[in-house]
């Protein structure tokens, strides 16, 4: 039996502009957590708290109807970002830490 992992609620920056959506279904295809469904040529967010802000939907939305502050959900990267004052990025080149 598959376990459904859930992270913190009401925190994701994902938003979908209904009026701009052309219902192509690309967001539903690329989302790794089934956040979207498409009915009657309109996409809809069904479970916002499952969003991990990977940015796949926004990147592949031809109508620019989706916005999300995409990035890496990695504590080590965020700490490094705080310390260096830069955008957190997953710096896997120092052979420890994340991913």
């Amino acid at each position: 039996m598959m376990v459904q992992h859930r992270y913190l609620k009401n925190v994701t920056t994902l938003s979908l502009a209904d009026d701009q959506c052309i219902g192509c279904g690309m967001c539903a295809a690329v989302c790794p957590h089934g956040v979207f469904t498409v009915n009657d040529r309109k996409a809809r967010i069904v479970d916002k708290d499952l969003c991990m802000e990977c940015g796949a939907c926004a990147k592949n939305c031809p109508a620019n109807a989706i916005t999300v502050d995409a990035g890496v959900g990695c504590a080590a990267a965020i700490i490094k970002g705080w310390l260096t004052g830069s955008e957190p990025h997953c710096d896997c080149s120092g052979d420890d830490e994340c991913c």
Partner: protein
Amino acid sequence: MSDCCCSANSCSSAAAITPYNKADKWVIGEICTPKGNIPIVSTQLLFHDTLGAWKVRWGIGRMNYKINSGLYAVGNPDHGSPVLVSANYKLTFDVLRKELSDLDCWLLILDTKGINVWCAAGKGTFGTDELVNCISKTCLSEIVAHRTLILPQLGAPGVSAHEVKKQTGFSVVYGPVRAQDIKAFISSAHTATREMRTVQFTLPDRLVLTPMELVPAVRKSLPVLGVLFITNQFAARPFDKHDVTAYAGAVIAGSVATPGLLPYIPGKAFAWKGWLIGLGWTAKYLFFAKRFKKGNRLLSAGELLLLPAISSYLAMNFTGSSTYTSPSGVNREMKRALPWIIGSAAVGGALTLGAHLFDRRKQ
């Protein structure tokens, strides 16, 4: 090759589209095209590949485990065969090719600097620009007659399908998340089930990542052992095997046990989950080591503040390996947890050190 599209002469003189090391056993032949030679790759993994995978899972040579980017062949593909796109991390490449037995297809391997598809997509190296660049570098539009590319779904954070179409004429189709579903995807005219589209994070998925949590934690612990050793030279009560065991257990609690038990630990924040497991371990161990008896209580208080904080911190770092944590969520979690982790560790560390230096045990 029987279907060699050029004469033997032009074949040997044609430049290789994808250079490779002749010693690599996973290359089992070459296909010649008017544009150059393309290596054919095996769909069987050898001991060498399995050993390589094991080494990188433990962090050995992990940052330099890659193959050349370019175009590869599987089976006996022709101008109508599907093109699968992937990353040049050798572990990724091996996971993909072992699922391709009995298929005839092309593999377009992007230069992701030896990083897996998902992480590289997040960084943008598995991205629109690199894909467009690779299509032109390999003369793909002259090798295949169709205009469809199958990308792994997890490449989508880096690639904009409509941009690729605009710039190259190739349509991007996002395939399944897992390589094991690729055959089913191709044979069903590019339909992916909900399950094939969803990222999981099963117990094996989580455990396979834990060596890369544990190894850096152990490496960072070496200076701690050094401090203990020096302290022991003049401590009233030297650190003993119980202290070291309690510490080692706290490290394992945060970097291995918490990832393993992740969905079963109450709460949502990783730092909280790690703290719970760390506290459970530390309390239980100190109890068995008879550290709650009179004369040991200052030390035990110190370790109960210090060790679960360490577990908590290590567990929090596992957010970077998880498949479902958002950066906004991790940011919120850290802003709440870090002051507690640092405070608890500082007070606990001071108490622990103080107890060892000055608090002579009542024997």
